[in-house]
């Protein structure tokens, strides 16, 4: 089980703030998780197949497509940050 969080515009577009994702054995990286989420279609497909404008973190550290994930991890997806 992976905790997946969504923030800001992404949270609104997906109408989801948080979910517990039951990962297949095949899902061992962020890139693979994104492919899985994109298969939900609609906004999911659109947002998780774009190359730019989507950031992610694993266990609260900035991550990339190749970052490994495993059960128990906290993954978050969000748009580019605009604080400060």
């Amino acid at each position, binding site marked *: 089980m992976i905790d997946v*969080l969504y*923030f*800001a*515009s992404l949270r609104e577009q997906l109408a989801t703030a948080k979910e517990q994702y039951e990962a297949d054995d095949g899902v061992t990286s962020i890139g693979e998780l994104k492919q899985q989420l994109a298969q939900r279609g609609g906004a999911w497909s659109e947002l998780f197949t774009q190359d730019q404008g989507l950031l992610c*973190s694993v266990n*609260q*550290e*900035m991550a990339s497509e190749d970052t490994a994930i495993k059960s128990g991890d906290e993954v*978050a997806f*969000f*748009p*580019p*940050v*605009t*604080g*400060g």
Partner: protein
Amino acid sequence: MHISVQIENFDSKDIISRLCEQRRDIGAIATFTGLVRDQSAQQDLVALELEHYPGMTEKALQSIADMAMDKWDIDDLAIVHRVGRLEPADNIVLVVVISAHRKAAFAACEFLMDYLKTQAPFWKKEITRQGESWVEARQSDTDAALSWQD
């Protein structure tokens, strides 16, 4: 080091006093304060809503602070960032750097802001009389952060 993510306003004078307390070796204090500015097309900004990622935000700020302490000869620093609903002219963020010399204090203060702008998980939504919209990230902020890489 003082790092805080908070709803309440901050008092830069208090934070500076705390950093400098009992010290005779500080010659330079550089500070940056970011405020809510009305940059909506119609000049009718009502408020900003500042969302963040609790837990990760504090870690990201700590990591940026550690980088600044490593990179420059500075003595201490503070980062305070507000979240929640803020109105025009309200404070958003404060960065303070104290050091013996001004060059290091200025550079570290600017570095902290450039990194915070691109690395810390905060998102601004503008609420105007016309409606709501998420603030877009700026390429100039990404470029500013990249400019510090050696």
